[in-house]
């Protein structure tokens, strides 16, 4: 099948309220043709709502939605040429797996023989060939999810919308399906918007990640930039595992001051309330005398290829990724060092990154 050229998609000042509840605030988002965009956010952040507005199942309270060069804000869903994987699978309980997968083609009156070939292809892609005669109630959650996926990919629409399509698969199958999806998306070149709350999924699949929180777009960038250049404190803490270490203090002309200690940063400017952030893997344990951040060892956990060291410092905890042969006794005093280029500073009142 010839690669689909892919179409751009855009949200233009899209707002959505349910009654008095504001779910999306002024969402502006441009998705490039053929892009794999991941919408990442915590539960209730409005990811599904954004997809439903793009699909036309929900009307935007304000703003415009475009697919390709068409303004589809007032276009019926079936004329938007999208296919969607629902978070709840949305399978037809009285139809077999094969009938479920083939439904989009049946609606389009594709000849039966062609349908059968397409059903087998789609089923093979999600490893469901042996289950075609079963009914959804006879499937596990992960199998149902794959039926929903197959039903979405059996067509070549302009846009794929996927709402947490891998959330119910076991780790091994999820890894496999992730690779499969990424490959498929690349070979079809179909613009894809993919919703997840799993940052690993977001980082590995996306060309760009859009981070949504409380209906507000926090940052839209490549996975590497999201990780290395978080736009604000929320993104910095949301991405990364274990999360970024946070220390409260004040920024005085580029010098971060806390509890009688001070640290030079690359940041210029001042803020009465500032937050210093540093990722666990950018820290190291040193002698207390050599570090501005110090405290006592709280626990050490051997994870496998590294050891996670938690240091209790002024009532808060700092996590350090240390070598796997690191040993220390709880209660020992220790310093936490990090080089200046790995320090992030945020304005505590706005949460914005200071540069």
């Amino acid at each position, binding site marked *: 099948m010839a690669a689909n050229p892919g179409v751009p998609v855009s949200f233009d000042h899209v707002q959505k309220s349910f009654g008095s509840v504001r779910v999306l605030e002024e969402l502006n988002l441009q998705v490039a043709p053929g892009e794999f965009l991941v919408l990442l956010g915590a539960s209730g952040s409005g990811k599904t709502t954004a997809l439903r507005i793009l699909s036309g199942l929900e009307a935007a309270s304000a703003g415009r939605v475009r697919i390709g060069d068409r303004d589809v804000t007032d276009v019926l869903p079936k004329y938007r040429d999208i296919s969607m994987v629902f978070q709840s*699978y*949305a399978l037809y309980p009285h139809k077999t797996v094969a009938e479920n997968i083939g439904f989009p083609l049946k*609606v389009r009156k594709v000849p039966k023989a062609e349908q059968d070939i397409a059903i087998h292809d789609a089923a093979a892609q999600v490893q469901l060939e042996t289950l075609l005669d079963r009914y959804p109630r006879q499937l596990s959650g992960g199998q149902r999810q794959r039926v929903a996926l197959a039903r979405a990919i059996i067509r070549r629409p302009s846009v794929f919308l996927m709402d947490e399509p891998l959330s119910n698969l076991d780790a091994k199958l999820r890894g496999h399906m992730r690779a499969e999806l990424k490959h498929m998306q690349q070979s079809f070149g179909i613009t894809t918007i993919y919703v997840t709350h799993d940052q690993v999924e977001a980082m590995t699949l996306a060309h760009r990640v859009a981070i949504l929180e409380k209906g507000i777009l926090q940052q839209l960038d490549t996975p590497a930039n999201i990780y290395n250049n978080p736009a604000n404190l929320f993104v910095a803490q949301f991405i990364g595992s274990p999360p970024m270490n946070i220390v409260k203090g004040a920024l005085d002309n580029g010098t971060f001051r806390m509890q009688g200690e001070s640290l030079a940063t690359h940041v210029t400017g001042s803020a009465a309330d500032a937050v210093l952030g540093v990722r666990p893997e950018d820290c190291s344990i040193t002698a207390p005398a050599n570090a501005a951040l110090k405290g006592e060892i709280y626990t050490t956990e051997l994870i496998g290829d590294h050891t996670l060291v938690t240091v209790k410092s002024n009532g808060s905890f700092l996590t350090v990724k240390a070598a796997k042969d690191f040993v220390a006794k709880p209660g020992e005093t220790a310093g936490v060092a990090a080089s200046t280029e790995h320090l992030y500073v945020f304005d505590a009142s706005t949460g914005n990154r200071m540069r």
Partner: protein
Amino acid sequence: MVQPAHSRLKSLTGRIATYTALLIWSGVCVFPIYWFGITSIKGFNDIAKGPRYLPFVDFQPTLASWRFVFTDHQDNLRLGYMNSIIVASASTLLTLTFGAMAVYGLTRLRPTIPWSAVALLGLGLSLGAIILFERAAWPWCFAVFALASIFFIAMRGWARGPMLEPHLIAFGLIASRILPPVTMIAPLYVMAEMTGLLDTQLLLILVYAAANLPAAIWLLQPAFGTRATEAEEAAYLDGASHPSILFTILLPMIRQPALAVGLLIFLLSVNEYFLAAHLAPGKAITMPPWLVSQISMREAQIIAEEDELSHLSAAIVLMVLPLLAFSITLQRFLGNRALWQR
């Protein structure tokens, strides 16, 4: 689980009391059916000689009445039977189809009809009426109404203004049942006569479908919920039309409660007497009016010809048995978590 001894004892006496009460009540319920059953196999003499309870013991059963009912010139019985089945089945099918479509529309499409559209409809109807019946006194009445409608539309605009919300429509439906049927019989009769449908199966089918539609809508609504399920939305995204979503996606998903409603509507139609007696007294007669006509016609003769009673009993058994089967099916659906535990 182990129950303490005293509670087991208590539950034993309790159970005896419960089952005794239930047995007595079942007897009360079942006896009439039993009585019709045995009366239908009694000969003339057994009926004349006073109560007889047990076949082969009290009296010698005979199939004479059944033979009479099935073979002898009882065309009317067969006619009534067939009419009842056809009318009840067709009207139930119609009621369910339109009821499901109405509930789908009310819960999925959220029709908001501007009052101005209602007014425009009124205008159209009144103009139509003026053209159809040119009666001297009427045109100016309609003209006033039409002018008011035009004024209203001009004030309101076509698509704006207060809306007729689904819950108002639903209330309007049930409100139509506030009128007792006796008030409908005269207009129905006149309309039937004008359209030439008097005493036809089609008339009863249409009248029953219309009369049962509000009940069907209200009974179906809980099964439909208040908004589209994601399965329906998926089908909608894939391009399925609303009718095909309703009939190929939604109805199969809620077939149990829908069937239960259907069986209920069927029983309502098949047992309806009042409208049937007035609108279809002749060739389209259904079982309830037929039975009543047998009783009133023969009341005078019963003492003389008691075996008519057994013919009648046979006919009643014939009518009740399928309904009993239906009721048991209905009971299975009701007991089967369909309507109550969704």
